[in-house]
């Protein structure tokens, strides 16, 4: 395929002005800021719960949309230009975009925890513009070349898959273990798949929506459980009985953010097991702290993704261990972005992809 020319490409962007007020506009095309950077034409972008949240509420925690901001951060694209010092990529290469750039200099960055960099510039976290746009500039080491057998649409799923990889690494899942995942949304489903790839022999997906559980069973879970309106301890016991893990699960991942699920998690994890908080819900909840203490549970947070997660995510897709294509509910044209957001908000879809503005549909 002939290399793309930046001058031939549109930089139409999907912009959030204020809650529930979005518009399209051509923005100035980015240039390479450093010889280590590359320019990428965005081909596909998935919609994340956080994009929806900004669209509806205009803020997540202390991140507030004060000025119009381009949405989107789960993207794959094609390299258009490379800086003079870039040797790993060339124009025409198809890449998954890791959309957050750390400072590389602080204590966290130097210690290998760049996801915790206080100066992190993350796409579509205000005030940084997102990737629902035509052209995107990135340091070359944050673009991951897609092998020939991985499509650009699959490339747009690498971001949520990397989130799942990071969560499962925090959970320290090893072969033969049992894992319970609370929540069967995209991240929960992907956590289940990654846990299987890490050798877990039992993976239980838990949710309140039966259709999501049906999907989970076909996708990656060995068992599924529909949460009941009973106590956390009762739900936990039902999960242990269902999966045949009377002592509890080695690892429990919360990918729901829901208080009842978090509470059940502490009752389903085994003595000495690991609990990972991946999901985001209420900032403060009632937590079974006594269970944590008595059972000597290791509890960890998980935030986005760090060193090696994206590369592993690409490898999991390329080797066929995680079939992300199954999560793609539909693909829409760039101008249908607002409709796509509405559809995702209604909760009917798993992952909707928005084609880039230069994509011929």
């Amino acid at each position, binding site marked *: 395929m002939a290399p793309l020319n930046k001058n031939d490409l549109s930089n139409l962007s999907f912009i959030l002005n204020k809650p529930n007020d979005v518009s399209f506009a051509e923005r100035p095309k980015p240039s390479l800021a450093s010889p280590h950077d590359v320019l990428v034409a965005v081909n596909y972008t998935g919609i994340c719960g956080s994009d929806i949240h900004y669209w509806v509420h205009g803020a997540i925690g202390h991140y507030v949309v004060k000025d119009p901001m381009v949405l989107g951060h789960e993207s794959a694209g094609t390299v258009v230009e490379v800086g003079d010092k870039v040797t790993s990529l060339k124009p025409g290469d198809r890449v998954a975009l890791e959309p957050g750039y750390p400072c590389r200099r602080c*204590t966290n960055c130097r210690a290998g925890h760049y996801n915790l960099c206080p100066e992190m510039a993350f796409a579509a976290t205000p005030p940084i513009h997102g990737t629902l746009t035509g052209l995107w500039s990135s340091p070359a080491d944050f673009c991951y070349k897609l092998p020939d057998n991985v499509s650009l649409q699959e490339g747009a799923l690498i971001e949520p898959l990397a989130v799942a990889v990071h969560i499962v690494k925090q959970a320290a899942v090893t072969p033969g273990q049992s894992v319970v995942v609370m929540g069967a949304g995209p991240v929960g489903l992907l956590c289940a798949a990654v846990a299987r790839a890490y050798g877990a022999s039992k993976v239980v997906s838990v949710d309140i929506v039966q259709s999501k559980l049906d999907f989970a069973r076909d996708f990656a879970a060995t068992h599924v459980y529909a949460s009941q309106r009973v106590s956390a301890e009762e739900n936990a016991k039902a999960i242990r009985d269902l999966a045949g893990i009377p002592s509890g699960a080695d690892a429990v991942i919360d990918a729901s953010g829901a208080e009842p699920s978090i509470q059940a998690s502490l009752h389903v994890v085994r003595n000495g097991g690991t609990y990972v908080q991946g999901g985001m819900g209420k900032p403060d909840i009632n937590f079974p702290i006594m269970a944590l203490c008595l059972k000597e549970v290791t509890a960890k947070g998980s935030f986005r993704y760090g060193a090696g997660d994206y590369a592993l995510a690409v490898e999991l897709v390329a080797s066929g261990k995680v079939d992300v294509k199954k999560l793609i509910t539909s693909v829409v044209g760039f101008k249908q972005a607002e409709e796509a957001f509405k559809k995702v908000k209604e909760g009917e879809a798993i992952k909707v992809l928005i084609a880039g503005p230069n994509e011929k549909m």
Partner: protein
Amino acid sequence: MNTELLTTVMKNPSLFLAGPGTARIQDRPVPTISDPHDVIVRVCFVGVCGSDVRRGDAVHFWKHGGIQTPVSDPLVMGHEASGTICAIGSAVTSVKVGDRVAIEPGHPCRRCTACKAGSYNLCPDIKFASAPPDTHGLLTKFWKAPEDFVYKVSDETGLDEEVLVEPLSVAVHTSRLAGIRPGDTVVIIGSGTIGLLSGAVARIFGAHRVILLDIAGEKLRFAAEYLGAETRLLDMEASPEESSEAVLSQFDLHDRVDVVIEASGAEASVQLGIYLLRLGGSYVQTGVGKPKLSIPMLALSEKELRVRGCFRYGAGDFALAVQLLDRRMVDLKPLISSVTPFERAPEAWDKTGRGEGIKNLVQGVLD
């Protein structure tokens, strides 16, 4: 020509190694701020490391022109130094002009897999002071560094002492890799600068017993006084198995040595270290010696030893070393054996090469 006069005329006098046994002072362009995060340091003291001179079987720079990569083009030597900030870039916030700093001499790329995973000491493209082919070192008047590779130090500590933060960082890195925990028994083989500093750090990490072994009695007498460590002179005629039995008997440590830090690089010591360890013990190779040597692999395997290589220092090591010095948890002054004027630096190399002194310093270029 009078070299003292030369260095006042030159803008950035620097001491080059031009070939084995050939050193000369030449001028170089004064470095300038090119990135908003850069600082320029006026170098005040530079230390001499064993790697700068020939030592035993290992081939080093001064006598043989380079460790693994021979020095081809003239190269400025020195990688242990302290100084004062004389210029800062627009984005620098952690130091200001006039601040006294310890200098971390290796600048990684920050972009590769190793850097982003937190192992920047393993960056394949790291620019390390005095490393061939062309990364000039710290025996110079002015040195440019990114802000996060200089560390502001206490006004109470001399800049001569601050030079030893570099080998102290090696000791910190070693102790962290060894996984020393409170109550541990640590044996250190080799009582040079690194061995001594490793002993000090091991104590700080909570080691209950620290034992130093060496073939030189004088070094062990120093270790006993400096560290309050237990010591034993190794018999060069004895086999490593015999030495191991002698040490374990003398100190009543059969199956009780938790950690061995090998800080000499000598083959017999490496073997000794493996024999000394208890089942499941931890071994760290910090000393640099022959590239290939013979080890008791069966003993290593059957005792399920955890063996780690150790290379320079990584994330957090330098910062901790500065903290340890500035809080007076280690005293580095006793290790400073001499200070040689800049123009006569090769004399400091010769001293170190002859085994004279522990740490020999070179004075930075004076105005």
